[in-house]
């Protein structure tokens, strides 16, 4: 896989860019009613200590590839089909699953008027959480190479990602701006992978972690004055069940989880400010041995991000991003006293500086530097030794991406 990455990164991508003049790169319109779009992103990651996307001290990882192709077919005035497939390599973060059926849905317009429209989506849809979850794997929609990990945890990405079910949406076009309401229910049974199991149950266990019943997901988004200001509230309550197997001493139990995000964005001609605040509560019940059952945590995190456009094609980003695993024990002191593990497993504070250069309208490069204290959002698969993680660490990443 590493070899394939190198081939894409060092040979295919430059050749493609040289050979295809940008004005000829057109979203493929197969007909007036069918469109085809796609993207390709390749990143390089290195750190001064801990492992993230395969990058670690003295090693530059190219195990960060994102390729997606999607299509949308307007069958008639009120019925549309859309789907996207994704190839994603993310070091050991993705637990070896590279190909994903990202979404596939039927969108039925139920009612339209001059000032509103209402409809439903059926199938696999992306969870509308915060500003970025809908397109979290699409490099040109992210402000930085890595999304703020306080809100968009890459280590439990699949638990947040999408829902197989039904969603109701409503758009109101008010004189001051657009109001959008999305409410959905369904399951994410096929998405809970090893990485999620590690994050919630501290191991890749013999049994299976699965959804317990249906979960809900919803977002209210108000875009004032054509999007100059954007406000959103998102909610994602659900329940997971651990179905044990004979090989695991941990007996079955369940986890109640509830995730809420408040988001705000303010755009000026050359400045863009974004901030999001998240709470994530986890409540373990009925597990045996009791250790798990006493687990209850109130995680919270937030970031503040400023982007400044320097020229029409170059922008700079600065962001402070912080996450605490448990509100009453922000610094992990209690946790450390009780378990003997280092305190820094329970929080992360990340300063990010980044540059984005739009070389061509659909071809961009990003470089960013992270200065981090804490290890709470690191993957246990990539960093199995929790006693020997670096409390203070830096990360540098570069990413090239292209869309059509």
């Amino acid at each position: 896989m590493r070899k394939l990455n190198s081939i894409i990164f060092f040979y295919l991508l430059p050749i493609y860019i040289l050979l295809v003049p940008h004005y000829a790169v057109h979203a493929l319109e197969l007909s007036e009613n069918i469109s085809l779009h796609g993207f390709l992103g390749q990143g390089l990651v290195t750190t001064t200590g801990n492992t993230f996307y395969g990058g670690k001290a003295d090693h530059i990882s190219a195990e960060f590839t994102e390729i997606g192709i999607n299509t949308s077919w307007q069958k008639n005035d009120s019925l549309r089909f859309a789907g996207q497939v994704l190839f994603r390599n993310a070091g050991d973060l993705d637990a070896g699953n590279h190909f994903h059926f990202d979404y596939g849905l039927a969108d039925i317009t139920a009612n339209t008027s001059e000032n509103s429209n209402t409809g439903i989506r059926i199938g696999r849809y992306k969870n509308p959480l915060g500003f970025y979850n809908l397109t979290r794997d699409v490099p040109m929609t992210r402000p930085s190479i890595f999304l703020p990990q306080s809100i968009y945890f890459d280590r439990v990405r699949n638990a947040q990602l999408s829902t197989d079910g039904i969603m109701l949406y409503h758009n109101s076009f008010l004189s001051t701006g657009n109001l959008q309401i999305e409410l959905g229910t369904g399951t994410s049974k096929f998405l809970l992978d090893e990485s999620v199991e590690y994050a919630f149950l501290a191991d890749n266990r013999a049994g299976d972690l699965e959804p317990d019943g249906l979960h809900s997901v919803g977002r209210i988004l108000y875009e004032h004055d054509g999007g100059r200001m954007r406000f959103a509230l998102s909610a994602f309550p659900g329940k997971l069940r651990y179905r044990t197997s004979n090989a695991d001493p941990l007996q079955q139990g369940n986890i109640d989880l509830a995730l809420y995000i408040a988001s705000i964005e303010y755009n000026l001609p050359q400045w863009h400010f974004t901030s999001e605040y998240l709470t994530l509560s986890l409540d373990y019940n009925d597990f045996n041995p009791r250790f798990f059952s006493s687990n209850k945590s109130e995680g919270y995190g937030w970031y503040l991000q400023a982007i400044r456009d320097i020229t029409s094609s170059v922008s700079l980003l600065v962001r402070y991003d912080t996450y605490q695993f448990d509100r009453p024990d922000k610094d992990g002191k209690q946790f450390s006293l009780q378990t003997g593990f280092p305190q820094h497993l329970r929080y992360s504070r990340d300063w990010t500086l980044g540059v984005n250069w739009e070389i061509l309208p659909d071809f961009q490069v990003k470089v960013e530097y992270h200065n981090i204290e804490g290890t709470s959002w690191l993957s246990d698969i990539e960093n199995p030794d929790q006693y020997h993680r670096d409390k203070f660490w830096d990360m540098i990443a570069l990413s090239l991406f292209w869309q059509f």
Partner: protein
Amino acid sequence: MLNLQSTYTFVLICLLLLLSITYSSSGYGQSVIIVNTSIQEEALPLNIIRAIFSMRKTHWNDGAKIAVYVFKSTTENKKINTLFSTQILKLLPYQLKKAWNRNVYSGTGDSPHKVLTIQEMLLKVSTTPGAIGYIPKIRTDMPNVKILSIQNRVN
């Protein structure tokens, strides 16, 4: 130890203060919005026109699907697009592209159809039922398209 919650509150207050600053852009340009003759509407409020070009409003009042045409962002077309979004829509140019990307890569909507020239724009809008587009200035030879004007807000 820095109190993170207080910091957050402080930062939010700063942001809210910033909200009181408004951004204004200069007067109308000569770009005009054109629609297919199948469209009954003669004029629409700005918020509706923005919702159409950001691909959020997807249907005309009679239930027909809206087909949005824009100029592909080539070197020659960049100016047309910038003038249209800043002067007519009163949006910053990147805002539309961001909205389209969010649609296209999440499956929640589409991006507009792209044309390369004014001739192609006129051809597409005149021959596609439900079509809407724009041109940089009024022309005398515009058979089978009509101009859609922006209604002044009543409120």
